[in-house]
């Protein structure tokens, strides 16, 4: 099966600094991939190259087998930039209509209505962009990215301006996209969200992928927490397989055991470890 996105030996140099220093990646159909990394690590550059907004220095990117930036590739993607602005005089419905014309979508009013409903803006279809809050504009931006049945969405910090309810809406939306077979490359600093929704995570540092895998694979066991009558004990380095022996040992020693829990590192721990490790 052709990957929806493939980057091979991708580099980008701005002056003397390398924004991307050899990135290889593939995203499969229906896969939700989180792209993590500190500011300036090359996340946005990678997304912009895939969208045809920036030219790579070397290497290549293809979308569904078409070169990034080509009309066929652009017809298959949707993009929400980290910094974006829509014409303030347009209503939500007019903005989506404009993007339908640009993407030659034949979805018409039903598609616009559905997209606005999905992002929780059904009541705001006639509201001008300039009267919307930043959070509403961000949700409208996601709807705009979805115009034309895109098969791959690039969402660059899509929840940065959203309140908890808005974030929940976007999370549900991402699940919905996954169910529809749409692939998503999610660029975010909100690690907890990425951990919740993404199938796979890539950590980018100084233009290189320094860690990649499923969140559950990346998260390592870091001990076992056992609750006894005398308090909570943490056995560092122990894993799930050690629990029966640890409990048996405590019971044999006369302790009353009320519970045991395997502690795993969170994605945040993995991220910090990977980033700090690559800097040292």
């Amino acid at each position, binding site marked *: 099966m052709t990957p929806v996105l493939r980057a091979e030996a991708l580099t980008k140099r701005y002056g003397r600094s390398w924004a991307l220093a050899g990135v290889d990646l593939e995203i499969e159909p229906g896969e939700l991939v989180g792209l993590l990394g500190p500011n300036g690590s090359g996340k946005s550059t990678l997304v*912009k190259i895939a*969208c*045809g*907004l*920036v*030219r790579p220095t070397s290497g290549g990117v293809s979308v569904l087998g078409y070169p990034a930036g080509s*009309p*066929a590739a*652009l*017809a298959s*993607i*949707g*993009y*929400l*930039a980290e*910094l*974006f*602005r*829509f*014409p*303030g*005089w*347009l209503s939500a419905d007019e903005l989506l209509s404009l*993007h339908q014309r*640009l*993407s*030659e979508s034949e979805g018409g009013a039903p598609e616009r209505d559905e997209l606005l409903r999905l992002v929780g803006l059904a009541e705001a279809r006639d509201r001008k962009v300039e009267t919307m809050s930043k959070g509403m504009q961000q949700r409208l*931006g996601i709807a*705009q990215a979805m115009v034309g049945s895109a098969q791959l969405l690039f969402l660059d910090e899509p929840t940065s301006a959203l309140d908890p309810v808005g974030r929940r809406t976007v999370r549900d939306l991402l699940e919905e996209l996954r169910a529809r077979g749409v692939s998503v490359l999610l660029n975010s600093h909100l690690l907890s969200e990425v951990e919740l929704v993404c199938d796979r995570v890539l950590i980018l540092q100084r233009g290189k992928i320094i860690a990649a895998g499923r969140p559950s694979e990346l998260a390592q066991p870091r001990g076992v927490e056992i609750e006894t009558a005398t308090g909570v004990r943490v056995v560092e380095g122990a894993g799930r397989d050690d629990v029966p022996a640890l409990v048996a040992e405590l019971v044999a020693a006369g302790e009353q055991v009320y519970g045991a829990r395997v502690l795993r590192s969170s994605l945040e721990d993995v991220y910090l470890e990977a980033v700090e490790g690559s800097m040292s």
Partner: protein
Amino acid sequence: MQEALRRRVFVVVLVLSVGFLVLYGLGAKLAFGETNGFADRAAQTGLDSRTIAGATILGLAMFAILFLGTILVVFLTLGAVRGDAERGLLQPLLVRPVSRPALLAARFIGAAVTAGAYVALIFLGALLITRATGDYWPDRVVVPMVQLAAAVAIMAAISLLGSIWLSGTANGIAVFMVFGAGLTAGLLGQIAKALGAETLESISRTLQWALPFEALYQDALSGLTADASGVTEQIVRLGPFGGAQAAGPLLLPYAVLYVVIIGALAAAGFRRRDL
């Protein structure tokens, strides 16, 4: 266009234009009043005072119209690429199967048609005022009007080209400096011609080929008195802000070619621009 409407650009332009036409009407009435006083004596010496006054003040109006049209077109285009990209307006449009040159062409056509229509409208207004206040009607109307609109279209192309690399403010400054350079070239040409300074005339001619909006303006001025002759012709040829100078039939095709070349350069630059 809609952004210009929202920002009340057109309201400001309309108010200023009406103000300009009212002041122009007053000035034309005064000028014709003054010249009518010695029209008979002038006629005895072979001077057509009405043509001199009419062509001169209409020429002044044309300069003002060119300037106002340039301001309008520059403000419609100065941030078309880099400015809009920095504001995040451009990227959502470019991540669609629409080519960058097509987007640029749309911006050019929008700006050139808007400013061209504006220039034509104000020119016609000034023409009617001149007729009403001094009973003067120029020898040519349509060609000078088209040439003014074409001059403004050239400014739109130059401004769009600059917008690929320059920020809005820097591009605005650059385009007005180019505009000033073109006008200065025209003035220098007139001075050089009067003094017989060939080198200066050559420099002026080169600059006018490089910036043909000035040649279009001078040819448009020349069209006002295309049928004048004798002393009257000599006087009106001196004209205000760069004299009237017929440019020949190749100027308009050259202007079209010029816009195409500038457009091609802009398209090539835009294609290579990282956003």
